[in-house]
């Protein structure tokens, strides 16, 4: 009986670590759906949750870079803006993400915060390069949103 009650309590509290954490972020629903979609989510501590989201940032970056590459042929008139986006998103992939992973794993989260914030900045700058006619809006908006949520979680480590 005691074991059953303990198990139930543990299950309830495990499920709500993600929820408790996500309540402290600017986008609860996005946060919960991203973390629940990863098998590591249910047993991760705050650092672990942050690392899961950084993984999502990485995945979104790769997806966006692929989209950018495809657009060169479809929308050749956008070359200049696409070049800038390519540069910006490569920064996310090769600089921001590795910096954030290393920093959070090693317990100096402020450098992780820097990398995560920068991912949002680079996405904004890329978007702005199209002067209002962006073919990447939903992807850049996603990046900004995920960056905000991730930043909120990283700040809990400070």
């Amino acid at each position, binding site marked *: 009986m005691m074991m059953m009650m303990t198990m139930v309590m543990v299950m309830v509290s495990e499920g709500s670590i993600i929820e408790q954490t996500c*309540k*402290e*972020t*600017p986008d*609860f629903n996005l946060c919960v759906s991203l973390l629940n979609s990863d098998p590591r989510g249910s047993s991760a501590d705050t650092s672990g949750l942050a690392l899961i989201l950084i993984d999502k940032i990485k995945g979104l970056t790769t997806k966006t870079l692929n989209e950018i590459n495809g657009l060169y042929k479809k929308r050749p*008139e956008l070359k*200049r*803006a696409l070049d*800038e986006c390519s*540069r*910006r998103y490569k*920064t996310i992939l*090769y*600089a*921001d993400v*590795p*910096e954030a992973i*290393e*920093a959070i*794993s*090693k*317990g*100096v*989260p*402020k*450098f992780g*915060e*820097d*990398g995560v*914030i*920068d991912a*949002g*900045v*680079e*996405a*904004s*700058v890329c*978007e*702005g*390069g*199209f*002067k*209002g*006619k*962006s073919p990447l*809006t*939903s992807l*850049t*908006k996603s990046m*900004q*949103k995920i*960056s*905000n949520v991730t*930043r*909120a979680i990283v*700040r809990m480590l*400070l």
Partner: protein
Amino acid sequence: MASNEALLPVTSRQDPLSESRSDQIPETRRRRPIKVHLAIYSGLLLIALYVALIVTHDGSTAQHGAKDETSTESRARLAGVSEKSNDRVSKLSDDRKVEAFAWNNTMLSWQRTAFHFQPEKNWMNDPNGPLFYKGWYHFFYQYNPNAAVWGDIVWGHAVSKDLIHWLYLPIAMVPDQWYDANGVWTGSATFLDDGSIVMLYTGSTDKFVQVQNLAYPEDPSDPLLLKWAKFSGNPVLVPPPGIGAKDFRDPTTAWKTSSGKWRITIGSKINRTGISLIYDTTDFKTYEKHDTLLHQVPNTGMWECVDFYPVSKTQVNGLDTSVNGPDIKHVIKASMDDTRIDHYAIGTYYDSNGTWVPDNPSIDVGISTALRYDYGKFYASKTFYDQNKGRRILWGWIGESDSEAADVQKGWSSVQGIPRTVVLDTRTRKNLVQWPVEEIKSLRLSSNKFDMTIGPGTVVPVDVGSATQLDIEAEFEIKTEDLKLFFDDDSVEADKKFSCETSGGSTARGALGPFGFSVLADESLSEQTPVYFYVTKGKHSKLKTVFCTDTSRSTMANDVVKPIYGSFVPVLKGEKLTMRILVDHSIVEGFAQGGRTCITSRVYPTKAIYGATKLFLFNNAIDATVTASFKVWQMNSAFIHPYSPDDLSVPSRT
């Protein structure tokens, strides 16, 4: 690197326009796909359509956007996302209407400084183990040999005869042991009684635990201290019970206790209370931890890079870290992980039980209103006692305020501030005073002297030729017809309502300010960085003076952070208003009232570069006429370069 200060357009706290416009575009395109195809073939017509669309979006969607902004903002506040970071966000709203911006190599290569320490390339952060030994000043630093962002950290190394002309040396320490496999992090040097050096530093172990390690010069007879040996018994300290494995770093220089033992302190946290642990040792290999703390302050978060040192109440020289006595106060400084601000407080140290009490608990270490070495971009600072000239010298890490993409493109990130002497302000006794080391004067080339009287609302070009490497020393006097002027010498800012940030920057005009210089400006002032005083009437008709740097119009670029920095500065009876400004490409350092208030800023103009950079004097006051008496020096480069045998032939001063 876009740090904590970076743009936050994303939560639409700042710019409803950008958010709403992005919302609109997908719908518009869904409705009119055929028209888009036609538009591609209509060249000029297309451009006109785009312009019209942008204009109508701005107007019609402002309402919608504003609503979104409010609801998102309040949810963010309720959710407890730190609002401290809001203070450092720059608004994108104006920049959205500017042409989309891309850095080119001409603009980026201009940003490199001429006389501030920075490695040849890649990322740098905290100053480490500064010391003077056998005729050379040594400087070590957190360095990433592989990238222009933080990571893979090693100890970089450089030496100088004068704290200005640096020579790059090979890397001093790399992560080659299990106890520092994940990073050779920040540490400090101590001189033992026999003059030998021990270095304590934090290692991140192969299991990501933060530990303290001992290292020492492999060959003490080598004045360049090229090689370092690590103690075979490392680590000498591991996180104690109750302290997190990743909350234990940055050991200080040790000081002698009255019982003859050495004592160090290490910053940490317990929940949200910032603390400083204290240990005694005789050999730097085994330690006794005190049960009590040197100090703690609730709600300040993790204390990084703690520094602890004595200052004289009566004399303006530096003191060895072990000095103690009746005419001595002690300073505790810590770097707040949470806010990226370095705070210090002055207080009394009790050697018998290793505790410290602040003179003014309301501005205790880490409290948001506590004093700072610098009210701009300045972190992880560390002092050392310079036994060569009897000074205490302060180093500070100055990170970038730009995007990481720009850092990657230009291939480097971060500089160090010009080393400053630090002493207690013997007049106010409530704050420290900092000043660039005297040796920087050796960089001064030609100079121009000016005496100008400028009326309200004037901007005057100051013709000095090239304006990217300057040393400016200025004195200001306000002339008004009526009042007797009493300046407020209280170093605690009583009036919270008035600050550099909330005063509206350099364009907001008051009766007695703002006035000062606009540096890194272009001819048309489309880009400019004002460094200025703003004088207001405080309580009991005392005048309050704030000293500010306004970077909000420093560049047309839209991917950099552009804060307005500054703080109140005490001005004592009979003192004129004085400021000094060092301009060195993308860094501006301002010092008010002989260094009572200091502001370091990073600035990234796109037009005000190379020959186009200008200097202006301005007076935006409504009532007051200002006389400015100042001198402007051209500054030479420090020609920082890798050391070669030729450099060794420079005669030593010792």
